[in-house]
């Protein structure tokens, strides 16, 4: 990624984070390098674009704000590149909470409220008002289960809440873009994942071993056989 791109992402992200409480997931619309809608370049990002300008379905503005701040500390946007918010983690989690049978909504609501209370009692301010350093130390308390007391009243354990948000944030950032996360393949770029291929030949593996295999950037569901109403049968790169 170029320095220019990084700067642009950073600014965009900061501005959007401020607006997160008011606009919910809308804040996290990614833009491509040249400012064109992502959809035009990456068909898989259409799900994210579709969520634009809409608040989260399952969380209040205040809850969204706390969650956004927490996610932003888990995988921040920094000099190494964009983070989980840019990857669409808020919208991903909102979609997850909308799924039939999801039992996580209450866990999110109570956990986010408890995080705010814990921040007030121990660090004198709402979580979103804390410095990044204090936010991090509060999250370390959560992760290690040390945030149980102090009037925070986590349902279950604070570590359980932390791990749930972390797991969902990781799924959002590094999972298939089909679910609304990993926008612009931010997560796969971060870990140099060479991409979803339907066939990896002996030669492909040799190229990978020699660091010469070009990454593929597409969702599993961009392969015809997994779409709906498409013809049956494998859709293999190059052969079959």
């Amino acid at each position: 990624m170029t320095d220019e791109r990084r700067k642009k992402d950073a600014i965009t992200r900061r501005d959007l984070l401020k607006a997160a409480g008011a606009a919910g997931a809308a804040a996290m619309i990614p833009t491509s390098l040249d400012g064109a809608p992502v959809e035009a370049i990456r068909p898989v990002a259409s799900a994210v674009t579709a969520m634009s300008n809409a608040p989260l379905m399952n969380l209040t503005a205040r809850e969204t704000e706390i969650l956004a701040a927490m996610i932003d500390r888990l995988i921040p946007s920094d000099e190494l590149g964009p983070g989980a918010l840019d990857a669409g983690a808020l919208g991903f989690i909102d979609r997850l909470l909308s799924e039939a049978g999801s039992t996580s909504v209450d866990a999110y609501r109570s956990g986010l409220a408890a995080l705010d209370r814990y921040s007030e009692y121990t660090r004198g301010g709402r979580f979103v008002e804390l410095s990044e350093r204090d936010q991090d130390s509060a999250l370390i308390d959560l992760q290690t289960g040390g945030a149980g007391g102090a009037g925070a009243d986590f349902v279950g354990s604070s570590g359980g809440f932390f791990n749930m948000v972390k797991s969902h944030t990781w799924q959002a950032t590094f999972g298939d873009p089909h679910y609304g996360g990993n926008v612009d393949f931010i997560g796969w770029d971060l870990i140099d994942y060479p991409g979803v291929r339907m066939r990896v030949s002996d030669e492909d593996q040799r190229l990978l071993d020699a660091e010469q295999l070009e990454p593929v950037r597409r969702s599993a569901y961009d392969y015809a056989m997994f779409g709906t109403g498409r013809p049956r049968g494998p859709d293999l790169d190059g052969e079959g």
Partner: protein
Amino acid sequence: MPRQVRPADVVIIGMGAAGGVAALPLAEAGLSVVGLEAGTWLDQRDFAPDEIRNNYRDWPFLVKKVEDERPTSRATSATNANRVGGSPMMNAVGGTAVHYWAQSWRLNPWDFKVASETVRRYGFSRLPAGTTVEDWPLDYEELEPHYDAVERAIGVSGNAGNVRGNIDLKGNKFEGPRDREYPMPALRWTGFLERMADSARSLGWHPFAGPAAINSERYDGRAACAYHGFCNKGGCPVNAKNSPLISTIPKALETGNLKVVTQAHVTTIEVDREGRTTGVNYVVGTEEYFQPARVVLVAGYTYENSRLLLLSKSNAYPDGLSNNAGQVGRHYMSHHQGGAVGALFPFDLKAWYGLPAQGVAIDDFADDNFDHSDLAFIGGGNLWAMSDRRPISAASMSTYGRGRNWGSGWKRFIHENSDRSHGAYIQKTTLPYEDNYLDLDPTYTDRLGLPVIRITAQYKENELRAASYMQDKMEEWYRAAGAVEITRSGLGNTMGITTHAYGGTRMGNDPEMNVLDRWGFSHEAPNLGVLGASVMGTSGARNPTLTAQALAWRTATHLVEAWRDIAE
């Protein structure tokens, strides 16, 4: 009154790894076979390479019987059992073999004779306290033709290590003699796997490529493995993973003698006054059916097999079908696969496109392949270095003590190390013990109100000592290959729900100690057979599926040969 359907010669309860294989020799022999399957049909289009769905969310199967009746577990009878986690199994035609790792091992000849061989080589005192282990009622040589038949019927790739006594170091020099080569060569290795093999050789060990029910080349009209990297709990979109769904079941259907009924939830097995089975009760939705049959083969997962027998009470069997000797649920084992070892390397492993069944095996410390005279345990483990990595799991890797696992520092760590970690898979000998058993839980039930299985079991000293020994060996191997950090997880305690669950309906010659005879038929109800790892009396140090399938094949062919004695 349940609706009575047309009688069958044989009803098989469960069209999974074992039942789906046994159906073929029965149908080919001309017997009318009904396969009752709780799940539904799936096909290639259901198997998108999608880590979120395969590894973090529910699989695309409609029926969740295994989840609904997942067992409770506790270490000993002194505590209450808890119901934690989810079931690792699935309901579908083909069963969990639709998404298993497909490692397809034969057991070592020693695994069939653990009791007598231990006494012979080391003395009676070396049998662990409280173990109920006994020699199997058959030996490796007797099972060999059935291993061979199943390897060909489903398609197994691998390098033979011992063909009729001729040792070939491309395969496992410790394996029992095979009649011939595998039908396909082993899956390929990556550069890192070659490195692991070289390191093992430098230690004087004998590395080889493990066997898999995955096509290394085109086989029986199905494609070769595409190495796409989503095999771990993933179905195969090119049909290279040889579950019964695509191998034996279609062939059995072609005979016209197999009928598969899906979404059929079996509740009880019926018996007559003499104690012979007469058929099976099942429900589809809210509709009740009775399937009459001359022979009943129970072929669910290990927990389901004991449960179904315990739930099938009658005048002839007041404590559950074939349980008048009180042996149903006994000799239970959760295979010891814990005590993991992880390693961090200072270079990328290029592991993104592997599969768990593609790797390097070390059998030098398995079974009785090494001298235990100065060791405080019997048995051992199989070391397995595979090639398996997916993005979310890679990003969730251990930081090996190098800082916390989130934040900007972590981003730098993961950017550098996402392809540098490795986790070994180490399967250990696990023995049956007097106080490790399955019974019906007094509290938890499934949706029909029927009690679920309760696991009361824990790993004993023998398993823990073997696990610790194997961790030492694995660390030695990793260090030789250049690892810079090593992690070890705990050695284990409670035996929880596992994909490798054995016992509960053990085979053996003594009817007072075993539910089944040497052919897999009940000592008490002569026309009742049981298929699956629930019949096995020892675990071995490797994946159970091929052995369960070979035994199922043997039980089925025996049924054909002894039809009059068993069915009439």
